[in-house]
């Protein structure tokens, strides 16, 4: 009851994330219909599509919040399909939420520290008895949290309750919390929604930096095509739960089906 799932230090070359024929049905509707795609190690893979296409559902399956009705998800050789969320997190898959999911009264620092959960050990006993191990651990990870906070530009907000931050900042906290999990695969659900252009630039840059400096895979759901087109190495397009296109940004952008279903004829 007191031990955390084993931490897996990110392997230098993270494994590929393979989604195979994943179908998700809810009473009466099929949110995902035999969707397959593969996220190459260390790449940014964008998942786009109209509202209600099934992007977040995909994330929910990848992070264990939903059980796939059929199909499989593998990270390298490990099968994630039936794992509980915390086990999947234990394997180094981190995500942000499209609708914020931050404890409003916990400080940003605490929220970020929560991200370290899988990497830390000390359970009820150790923390209760304040064993030196726990203290050492806490120090170590607080430092890392500060490092990450500086990296995404939250150092000033660390001691504030997340709830009072403006929307955009709260999204950053979520990103930070996910980074604090030292993930192999990072799932970002609309990370720059609700930001001004230059804020988007910063976050886009952060995302790029993360990929480059940590070499981890990133799955990105975003409606800002500009950013998607330039960040993504590969794109998967969903519509009504079906995969209607996939490939390099360029290919996708000119795919008539995509234009028709998603982009529209933009000015």
């Amino acid at each position, binding site marked *: 009851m007191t031990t955390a799932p084993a931490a897996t230090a990110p392997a230098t070359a993270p494994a590929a994330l393979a989604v195979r024929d994943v179908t998700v049905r809810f009473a009466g509707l099929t949110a995902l219909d035999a969707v397959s795609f593969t996220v190459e190690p260390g790449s940014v893979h964008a998942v786009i599509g109209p*509202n*209600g296409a099934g992007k*977040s559902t995909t994330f929910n399956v990848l992070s264990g919040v939903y059980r796939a009705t059929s199909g499989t998800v593998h990270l390298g050789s490990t099968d994630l399909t039936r794992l509980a969320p915390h086990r999947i997190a234990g394997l180094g898959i981190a995500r942000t939420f499209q609708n914020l999911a931050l404890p409003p009264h916990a400080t940003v620092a605490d929220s970020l520290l929560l991200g370290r959960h899988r990497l830390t050990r000390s359970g009820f006993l150790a923390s209760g008895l304040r064993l030196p191990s726990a203290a050492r651990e806490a120090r170590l990870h607080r430092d890392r949290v500060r490092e990450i906070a500086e990296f995404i530009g939250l150092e000033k907000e660390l001691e504030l309750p997340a709830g009072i931050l403006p929307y955009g900042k709260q999204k950053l906290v979520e990103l930070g919390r996910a*980074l604090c999990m030292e993930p192999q695969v990072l799932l970002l659900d*609309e990370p720059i*929604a*609700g930001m001004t252009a*230059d804020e988007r630039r910063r976050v886009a840059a952060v995302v790029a930096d993360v990929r480059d400096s940590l*070499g981890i895979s990133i799955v990105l759901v975003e409606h800002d095509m500009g950013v998607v087109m330039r960040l993504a190495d590969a794109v998967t397009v969903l519509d009504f739960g079906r995969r209607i296109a996939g490939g390099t940004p360029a290919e996708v952008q000119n795919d008539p089906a995509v234009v028709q279903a998603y*982009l529209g004829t933009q000015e």
Partner: protein
Amino acid sequence: MATLEIRELSVGYGPVRALRDVSVDVPPGAITAVLGGNGAGKTTLLRAVSRTLGFHRGTGTGTIRFDGRSLDGLGPAQVVAAGVIQVPEGRQVFARMTVADNLRAGALGARGGRKETAAGLDRVHELFPVLAERAHQRAGLLSGGEQQMLAMGRALMAGPRLLLLDEPSLGLAPLMAARIAETIQEINATGTSVMLVEQNAAIALRLASTAYVLDVGEVALEGPADELAASDEVRRRYLGVVDETAAEDATQAVAGPSRSLSRWSA
């Protein structure tokens, strides 16, 4: 005279000063855009108008008049009764209620009778067909965008005279964002004034006749939308111009704030 006039509005949350002497006009039948970065105070501004600052332990000074009538001292419900309807930031749908009930909740503030409500419902359904399909699904299970549509539809049910939109295009796919833009124009065409808080400055400035730019709680720029759209400041910070650079920045991470993060080993 202006439909909504905000004068010397200052708002603080405890020690935090969110707005300083902000004055904004929303002329009758016009669309007024409010731009600004994170924490600029846009949402706070809307809260002040809808008088929901209390929910956040915020307090304000200054005057807000709607049709010459002062809104100070009114409760949120009375503001709604006056015809000022807000689409709050972050959707805020009633997750455990069905889509249909969410729309009914929206109609509670409506001044019209049954017939208007029914008509309103049809209009919302034709705008957002998915809301009709999902009438009996719990709103919390909708996708983000669908929820955004619901939030919008819910506000329309009230038959607003002044519509306050806090980032209506948030999380909407390009097509749907465009659709919302049209909708806003339609509503506006039927005589509803609109105050539009948008991050998607491109859309906002295209729709709006006048625009304000908030910067850390103060009005930094204001004027006719097209003029602002032309100004460098706005082009650089709020308009599409960025996205190209964003690309470069992104690809060969050179942008100011970004630095590299060492890999964690422990």
